[in-house]
C-alpha cells in the first residue's frame, strides 16, 4: 500500500528543522500544495454520489420536452437555477438488480453503484428472501482507486440518518465483493476525522503521530502475520483489515491539512442528534458543507452521501406537517391515491432541493477560472424507479456538473422503450468522465461500453 506518493512537505521534517519551536499557522500553508489553485491542465476532477431510496414518482419526476428544450418536472423544479448544468437520463434500467439473491430493495441498493448482483447471505429480505453484501467494487471506490492516491482520503462516505440495521440496504459503497464501507452519520465526527489535526495544537498532533507510527507498524506486522496463517474468508477478512490499517499508517506521512484560500474551518453550530429524523434538514446541510469543504481542501475527490437507507421509514413531517406516514410506506401507495402521491412527490422534491444546495455550495468555491463545480460530476441515484411496484426500469438518474467539460449538460435525454439499456453503461461513462479507461463495469453480462450521446 505504499503506492501513495507523498508530494508534500512532511510536517515532521518542518518541525524537526525548526527544532520544535512554536510555529505560526500561516507558515504551515506552505506545507501543502494547493491544488484548488493549480494551473490549467492540472485541475482535479471530482465525483460525488447522492443516494436517495424508495423510488420516485415517475409521473412527477420526468421533464417534458427533450434534448436542450425541456421543462423541469414538479420534483426537479428546485433545480431550476442549475438547469443548464443537468443531464437528465431517461431510459436506463437497473438490470444487474434483476438477477441474483435478495428482495427488490436489497438488490436495487447493492447494485446501484456496483452494477453487480448480490452475494448469497443471511440479510433478511421481504418474504423470506435473503441476500449478502453486494458482489463487487462500487463505482466511487473504483474511481478512488485511480485518483485517491493524490489526496489524504481516497474517498469520503457520509450519511444522513442512515438507520440500523446495518445490512445490505444501508450500504452503497464497496471496496470489493462483500466489503461494504459504512457511511458516517455524524457531521461532527466526520469533521473531526478530516480536520481534527488541522484545528489541534501542531506539536500535540506531531507527538501523537509519532506514537501512531510506532503502534501501527507493530499492529500492521501482527495483521500480516495472522493473515498468513489463515485461509479462505478469514484470510480475506484480515487482508481487508490490514489494508485499512496501512491506509491510516500511510496518511500519517502525508502532513496535515492546513487552512488557507478556499479551504476554511467550518462552523457547525451547537451539537444536535444526527440520528433524529427531525434533524435531517440540518444534518444534511452540515454533511454537504463538509463534502464541499473536503473538495475545496482537496482532502478527497470522491464522495458519497447516502440519504437514509433502503426501505427507510423516516417520517418527513419537516417537509410537510401533514405527512405522518413513513417514507417507504408512502412510496407504496397506489397511483390513484392522490394525497399520498402528492406527499411522496414533496419528499422527492425536497431531495432535489438538497441536490441544488450541494451544487450551489460547490459553485461558491472558486477554482482556476471557474469553480470546483465545473470540475465535478454529481450522480443522483435511487435503488428503485417507482416505489409502489419496485420497478427498476427507467431509473430516475440525474447528472449534475460536466466533470471539467466532459458531459454536455443542459439536456434531458430520452431513449426508446426497447432495447433495455443496463445502467452499467452509465457507470462506464462516469469512469470515462473521470479519465479512467474502462470498457465495462460490474456484471460482465452487461459489458457494453459507455452511453452514447452524453458528451
Amino acid at each position, binding site marked *: 500500500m505504499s503506492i501513495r506518493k507523498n508530494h508534500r512537505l512532511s510536517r515532521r521534517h518542518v518541525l524537526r528543522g525548526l527544532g520544535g519551536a512554536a510555529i505560526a499557522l500561516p507558515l504551515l500553508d506552505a506545507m501543502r500544495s494547493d491544488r484548488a489553485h493549480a494551473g490549467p491542465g492540472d485541475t482535479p476532477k471530482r465525483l460525488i454520489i447522492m443516494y436517495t431510496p424508495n423510488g420516485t414518482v415517475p409521473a412527477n419526476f420526468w421533464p417534458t420536452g427533450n434534448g436542450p428544450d425541456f421543462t423541469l418536472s414538479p420534483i426537479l423544479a428546485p433545480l431550476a437555477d442549475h438547469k443548464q448544468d443537468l443531464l437528465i437520463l431517461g431510459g436506463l434500467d437497473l438490470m444487474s438488480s*434483476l*438477477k441474483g439473491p435478495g*428482495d427488490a430493495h436489497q438488490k436495487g441498493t447493492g447494485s446501484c453503484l456496483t452494477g453487480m448482483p448480490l452475494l448469497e*447471505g*443471511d*440479510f*433478511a*429480505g*421481504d*418474504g423470506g428472501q435473503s441476500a*449478502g453484501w453486494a*458482489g*463487487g*467494487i462500487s463505482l466511487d471506490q473504483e474511481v478512488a482507486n485511480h485518483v485517491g492516491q493524490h489526496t489524504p482520503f481516497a474517498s469520503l*462516505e457520509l450519511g444522513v440518518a442512515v*438507520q*440500523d*440495521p*446495518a*445490512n445490505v440496504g444501508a450500504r452503497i459503497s464497496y471496496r*470489493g*465483493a*462483500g*466489503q*461494504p*464501507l*459504512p457511511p458516517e452519520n455524524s457531521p461532527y465526527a466526520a469533521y473531526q476525522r478530516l480536520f481534527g489535526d488541522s484545528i489541534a495544537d501542531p506539536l500535540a498532533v506531531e*507527538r501523537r503521530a509519532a*506514537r*501512531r507510527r*510506532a*503502534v501501527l507498524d*507493530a*499492529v500492521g506486522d*501482527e495483521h500480516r502475520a*495472522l493473515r498468513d*496463517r489463515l485461509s*479462505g474468508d*478469514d484470510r*480475506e*477478512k484480515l487482508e481487508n*483489515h490490514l*489494508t*485499512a*490499517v496501512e491506509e*491510516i499508517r500511510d496518511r500519517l506521512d502525508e502532513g496535515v491539512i492546513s487552512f488557507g484560500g478556499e479551504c476554511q474551518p467550518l462552523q457547525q453550530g451547537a451539537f444536535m442528534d444526527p440520528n433524529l429524523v427531525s434533524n435531517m434538514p440540518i444534518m444534511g446541510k452540515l454533511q454537504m458543507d463538509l463534502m464541499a469543504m473536503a473538495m475545496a481542501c482537496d482532502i478527497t475527490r470522491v464522495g458519497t452521501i447516502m440519504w437514509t437507507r433502503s426501505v427507510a*421509514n423516516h*417520517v418527513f413531517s419537516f417537509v410537510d406537517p401533514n405527512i*405522518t406516514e*413513513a417514507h417507504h410506506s408512502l412510496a*407504496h*401507495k*397506489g397511483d390513484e391515491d392522490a394525497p399520498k402521491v402528492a406527499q411522496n412527490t414533496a419528499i422527492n422534491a425536497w431531495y432535489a432541493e438538497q441536490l441544488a444546495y450541494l451544487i450551489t455550495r460547490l459553485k461558491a468555491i472558486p477554482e482556476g477560472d471557474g469553480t470546483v463545480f465545473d470540475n465535478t460530476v454529481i450522480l443522483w441515484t435511487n435503488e428503485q424507479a417507482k416505489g*409502489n411496484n*419496485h*420497478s*427498476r426500469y427507467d431509473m430516475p438518474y440525474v447528472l449534475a456538473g460536466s466533470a471539467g467539460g466532459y458531459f454536455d449538460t443542459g439536456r434531458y435525454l430520452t431513449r426508446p422503450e426497447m432495447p433495455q439499456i443496463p445502467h452499467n453503461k452509465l457507470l462506464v461513462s462516469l469512469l470515462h468522465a473521470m479519465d479512467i479507461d474502462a470498457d*465495462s*463495469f*460490474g456484471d460482465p453480462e452487461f459489458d457494453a461500453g459507455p452511453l452514447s450521446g452524453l458528451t
Partner: protein
Amino acid sequence: MRKTAGSNEVSVNMREILPLLVGLIVSTISVGCQQPAPDSDEQADGESTADTESEGDGDGDGDGDELTECEATIEPGPSPIRRLTRVEYNNTIYQLLGDTSQPANAFPADEVAGSFDNQAAALVVSPLLAEQYEVAAEQLALTHAPALMDQLPACGGGAPDPDSCTADAEAFIHGFGKRAYRRPLTDDEVAVYVDLFIAGTDLGEAAYDPQVGVEVILQAMLQSPHFLYRVEFGASDLADGGEDVVPLTSYEIASRLSYLLWNTMPDASLFEAADANELQTADQIEAQARRMMDTPRAREAVKNFHRQWLGLGRIEPQIAANGKNPDIYPDYSDELLSLWRRETEAFIDDAVFEQGANVEVLFTANYTMMNKPLADFYGVTGPTTDQFERVELDPGRYAGFLTHAGLLALYAKPDRSSPIHRGKFVREILLCQSPPPPPDIVPEAPSVDENQTTRDQFLQHSADALCSGCHRLMDPLGFGFEHFDGIGRYRETEWGLAIDASGELIETDNDGPYNGAVELAAKLAASDQVKNCVATQWFQFAYGRTQTAEDSCSVEEIQADFAAADYDIKELIIALTLTDAFRYRHVIGAEENP
C-alpha cells in the same frame, strides 16, 4: 471490472463459501403458497419454496444407528473467525480495564444477518471502523495508563533506571497481554512489545517517559487482531475420529464459553482452568458452563439473545419512528416504549432464571413483570413503584410473551392492529418458516373504517386468489391476536363490533383450529417445530453462523439434550457447549475442502 488478482479472489471465495454458510436456516423449512403467486420481475426462485422439512429437525429420529455414527465421527462444521461485536467490545473493555465508557457505541453499527448482530460472515472491518478502533485505543490508553503504572514500580520516581523499568514493563506485557489476547503471549510477541515500550519511552515530553511506553503498548494491544477477533487455531494434534479436525485449546474453549454465556472475555476462573489445560473434556466444559450460567452476566447474555431474536430491540426505534395515531390511541406515549421492552425482558429473565421455566412456559405463563407506570397502562393493580414485579394475569386473556404490549404494538400499524405482521412474526420468527415474498404490486390496504373490524377488512386476502395463496400462511396466525389493539392492549370489541379471534395453524407440525391468543399460544408451546426453531436460533446466536449440512450431528445432539431437559432454556445453552461444533474445528486450510 476489478483489475487486481486479490480482489478477484475475494469474489470467488465469498461466492463459493457463503452459500454453504447460509445453510439450513432458511432452507430447512420453507413453506409454499399453494396457489400461484402473481408474476413479478423477481428471479424465478419459486422452486425453493417447496417443503423440505426432511433435514435436520431431529424430532423422532433418535434411533441408535445414527447416534452411534455421530459418536464415532467428529464433525465441527465451519469455524469462521469472529470479530467482537460492539456489545462484546464494551464488555471486554470493562473486564480488562474496569472502563465503563462503552467506547464501541461510537463505532458503526454491527452488521445484522438473520436476526443477529454477531454473525461472522457479515462482520467486517471497514477503514472507518479501523480508525475508530485506533481512536478508542488511544483514549483508553490515555485514561488508564496512569493507574497501570503502579504495576511498573521500577518506572516510577524521578530518574528511573531504564533496564529495571523495562523488566517491569516485560512483566506487565506478560500479564496484561495474556488477558487482552485471552491466551499467553508468545516469546516473539513479548519481544515486539518490549521494543515498542522502549520506543514509546522516547516519544513523550520528557527525555525518558515510561508512561508513554505503557500507552503505546495499550494502543497496540487494543488494535491487535488477537484482541479484536477471536482467533482460533486449535491444538496441534489431530483429534481421533475426525478428518483434519483438531480440538480447540483450553484457552480457545475459555473464550468460546465466556463470549457465549457472558458476551465478554474469560474471567480469572476460566483462565485458571485454561492454564491447567482443564477445558478439554465434556465434563470439564460442562462444569464451567454451569458455574457461569449461575451468574448475573449469563442473564445479560440471555437477554441479549431475546432482544435480537424477538426484535425487542426494535420496539423503541421502530415504533418511535412510525408513531401511533393519537386520535385512536390517546393513551400512547413514547415513554411506554422502554417499559414495553423491559416487560418482555424482565418476564423472560424471571421465567428462565428464577422459575427455571422451559420454552413452553414462555408461551403459556399467565403472569408477567410490570412496574407501576406499566400497570397503569394495562389497567391492572399491584405494583406501586418503578421496580418491575410479578403480576398475575387473567389466564383467559393472556399467555406468556405473546400477549405483551410491546411485541403486539411492534407488529401493528400506527392506527390499527396488523394480523398480517403478527402472523408473519409467528410464522417466521417462532416457527422458522419463510412465506414467499409479496408481489411487487401490492394493492393499497383499506383505511381504518369504524364500521368494520380489521379482520373483516382483510378478508380480501382470503377472497382474492392472488393474495390467499400466501396470506393463508400468515393471516390465520395473526387473527388470534385481534383482541389486542395497535398498542397491544386487550379489547373486548373493536368499534363496538364483536371480535372474531379464531384462526388455524396450517403447514406446521401441530395444525388445527384455535380461538384466541391463549389457545394459539398453547398450540405453539406444544409444537416440536417451535422448539427446534428456538434451538436453531440459539445455534446461530451461539456459533455466529447458520447451520450447515456438516452440523447434523451437533444439531441432533442439541435437540436431544434440549428435549431430555424438558426444553429448559438454560440446558439448551449448556448443550450448545458440548457439541463437536463447539469443541473442535477443522485444521486451517483443510476446511476449504470439507
